[in-house]
């Protein structure tokens, strides 16, 4: 049996990572998964192919899954206003399903 849930994906520069993860934990997510990457937006091009002199501007992609869609949206909103008013980064929200609801 699969249960409806919500995935929130946050793309940010690494130097925001610690703050975002702390916010997620305090906000009561049951976990998160992080992958490293590169990207391009309005500002810098970040690339993983050559050394990044400034590692802190690399991209991290953080995603968390939550059963409670409203709460997930509220967290997404909070991250957006606390971090992405001033800094680079984007947040997206995708409906999904999970198998063991007790884990989330």
């Amino acid at each position, binding site marked *: 049996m699969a249960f409806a849930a919500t995935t929130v994906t946050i793309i940010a*520069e690494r*130097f925001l990572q610690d703050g975002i993860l702390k916010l997620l934990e305090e906000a009561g997510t049951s976990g998160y998964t992080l992958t490293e990457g590169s990207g391009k937006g309005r*500002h*810098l*091009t970040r*690339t*993983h*192919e*050559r*050394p*990044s*002199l*400034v*590692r*802190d*501007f690399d991209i991290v992609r953080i995603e968390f899954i939550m059963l409670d869609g409203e709460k997930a949206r509220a967290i997404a909103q909070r991250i957006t206003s606390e971090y992405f008013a*001033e*800094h680079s980064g984007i947040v997206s929200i995708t409906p999904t399903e999970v198998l063991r609801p007790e884990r989330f």
Partner: protein
Amino acid sequence: MESLASLVSSFVAQLQSATLAFLLGGFLLAATGSKLAIPDAVYRFIIFMLLMSVGLDAGIEVREADFDQLALPALLAALIGCVIVLIGSVTLGRLPKVRREDALATSGLFGAVSASTLAAAMVALDERAIPFEAWAPALYPFMDIPALILAIVLATLHKRKSTGEQGGKVGVGAIIADSLRGSALSALLLGLAIGFLIQPQDLYEGFYDLLFRGFLSILMLVLGMEAYSRLAELRSVAQWFAAYAVISPILHGLIGFAAGYLAHILVGFSPGGVVLLAVIAASNSDISGPPTLRAGIPGANPSAFIGSSTSLGTPIAIAVCIPLFIALAEIVFVL
């Protein structure tokens, strides 16, 4: 006239160095679209190795140092860091199409110090057999941190003024902590401490020093590649940044040289030390400075300050300023 000739000839002679060849080579490889890339993990390891090596060496030898001599150069370094930011603020910052935040972030970066440039200067001095105080590389944080602090404080005050916002003190302590925690300064300080306390001469010579020049050559390759690929960022911002990035390292280096000369007269600071102070002043931070500035001046456009430092400032500091100030020292101090 004669001294100008010998300045030019010493400068030209130094251009034939492996350090510059690798820097230029990296630039050309990137420009021709080569797929050669030094893995990021290796680059970060090299930075660690170089800074740990510089730190160990300084720590091992500092025991014999005469600490009276250290105070004045350190004070001068801090002053220079601040002066560089102020100069940037009243020159670059007043130019048309240049936003104040961008000017302050950029001059903060040029006031701060590049570990790579410092390492290259040490090798260049070694090659010309010009000695310097073992503790001279430890001047690094004394210039680096004040420059970053001043740039961030000025930018914050400016922002408060323009938004009419009130505010308490700017977190100077946080900026200092953030700087010291950066990977380059951490490695340097750890090396200093271990070198001083344990005196691991064999480990230093048999490993860290053994690999120093080789790793430096690879670092230069990386810096050259990065310089080319950041040119695109530089092109996206006002041309004044490019002009600043070309002229200011030389100017800052001259200020550093003059200050070092003062210390030479007052406390006997060595000619090699004077060169290092000049190069530290000429260099701009490439590792720890940018994130500190980005966090501290969020309104600044990174394309401006990273573009100008990485693509022009660093190559100028290494390829022009190091040979220039060594040549100058050879004349001034009749080496």
